[in-house]
């Protein structure tokens, strides 16, 4: 035992264990507060979920129309495209990965966040997970249950595809969070209104991430160029793994490369911008 008897080992392990469990408890409580803030404020937020239901119903109907004359397009069958579309909507919040950083900068509550006993990344991540839970309960799970009614097979191409999809989603969220912090840093750097930068990002991401149209189905070979971008690594890659289109290991490698590459940039940009933060309002 290298000179350490059992009571000594317990004394060393317990503080670490307690610290970790306190941390996790903190994350859980923060997530729970964020979830209740969404559901407790007013029932109006349900409208956003209604939009998601309608959007997926519309998209499915459009795919059925356009693929009626093209049973297989870009190597994908109609069934695969429908599954891709449904799963993209089930995980829409995770793919969008919006943590409310810009709002926090805009309304000034970022200032009080620095005084909390948790780093900004931990606070925002915990809150985001809490909000996702609401989205899952009120939108994604009902949508998943409605899949047979919509005529869509919601299952992955294989068990292996399902497992790799889970790994891919972790990388996807990691890329999404890094992008969110980079965008937030740009917002501070250029002193822009959050709406401008948010809308620009939404506009670019909707086009190049493959969230609405699988990249393989874009005309003029656009998809081949877009699939190397971080937006596609965050969205298109896990969806392709789910439906069994493309080499999963290659897709995971590209995702890992982006996750590893983007986080140092995000953290550096935050450090470099810290002194530029100004809190107004509140």
């Amino acid at each position, binding site marked *: 035992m290298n000179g350490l008897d059992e009571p000594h080992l317990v004394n060393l392990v317990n503080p670490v264990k307690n610290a970790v469990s306190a941390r996790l408890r903190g994350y859980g409580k923060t997530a729970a507060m964020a979830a209740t803030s969404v559901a407790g*404020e*007013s*029932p*109006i*937020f349900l*409208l*956003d979920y*209604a*939009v998601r239901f*309608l*959007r997926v*119903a*519309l*998209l499915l*109907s*459009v795919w*059925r*129309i*356009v*693929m*009626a*004359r*093209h049973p297989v*397009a870009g190597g994908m069958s109609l069934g695969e495209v429908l599954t891709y579309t449904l799963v993209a909507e089930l995980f829409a919040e995770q793919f969008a990965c919006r943590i409310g950083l810009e709002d926090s900068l805009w309304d000034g509550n970022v200032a009080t966040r620095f005084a909390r006993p948790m780093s900004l990344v931990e606070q925002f991540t915990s809150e985001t997970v809490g909000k996702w839970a609401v989205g899952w309960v009120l939108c994604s799970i009902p949508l998943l249950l409605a899949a047979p009614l919509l005529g869509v097979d919601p299952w992955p191409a294989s068990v292996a595809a399902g497992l790799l999809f889970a790994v891919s989603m972790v990388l996807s969220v990691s890329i999404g969070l890094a992008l969110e912090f980079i965008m937030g840093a740009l917002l501070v750097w*250029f002193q*822009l*209104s959050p*709406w*401008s*930068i948010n*809308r*620009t990002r*939404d*506009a*670019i991401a*909707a*086009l190049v991430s493959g969230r*609405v*149209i699988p990249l393989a*189905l*874009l*005309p*003029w070979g*656009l998809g081949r160029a877009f699939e190397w971008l971080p937006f596609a690594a965050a969205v298109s890659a896990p969806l392709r793994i789910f439906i069994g289109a493309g080499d999963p290991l290659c897709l995971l490698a590209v995702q890992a490369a982006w996750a590893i590459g983007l986080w140092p940039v995000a953290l550096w940009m935050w450090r470099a911008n810290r002194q530029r933060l100004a809190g107004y309002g509140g």
Partner: protein
Amino acid sequence: MEGKSEPNIVVRMMRLWGIAAWMDLLWVTKDLKQFVFYFGAEALLSVAAMSTTLLLAARFNGIGAWSTDQVVFMLAYSTAVMGAMETFFNFNVLEISRRIGRGQLDHVLVQPRPLWVAILTEGFCPFSGSGSLLIGLGLLAWSTSRIGIAVTTGWIALLLVSLAASCAVVLAFSYLWGSLAFWSPRGAEEVCSSSNVMLSALRPFPLDGLGPVLLGGMLTFAPIGFVGWLPARGLLGMGPSWQSAATPLAALLFGIVASFIFRKGLREYGRTGSQRYLSHGHRR
């Protein structure tokens, strides 16, 4: 002022539009960087909103009964409608629930002009807010020439009436939801942004493949069909001719219902006032 008669309402509205346009120009010239980013982002967003459907149409040579050029026409039409809303009803005039919920309706009510005049003139921003409108109108002209529509005076009149009617549907829908803020100022403060997102997010899709229940819903409870799909069908001569009259009729019905509910809400507001301000000025 004694001896000075009130100007004609049209003249007065023109003056108010002029003042709003001047203030918008001042904002543009005051902070060019913000303007470029804002204008560019709005223009980029309107292109991106169209791009999904447009790329699908390009890839598959149209969508169902719609040729690619007809799809462009429909997208351009709905972009022009939403662009007109941004140009004429900016500064939370379209998102009226924010003004009601925040107690800012008082700022309008204390001014010496009717509320409806304020609604029609206060949100006008022809310089900073016209990005989508210009793109929409440009694409509308381009796709019209590509499709080879016989552009007669009657057709242009129908186009203008349809555009105005679609705008009226969007405004009425927003005020219908926004009126909730009279009864629930805090809870419904953001309801208009959700209802407007519904219209703008779903407007690029042709509704042809939907079943009768869903299609009925998208022409009544969520009148997405009147923002682009149905009026475009009427203008392109697709389907029965009554479709051309459907959007103006819908605008009339939505307008009556929204006006009734909004007036009811105003009466409630008259009794309760704003509950959002503390005595020292801050919002709850």
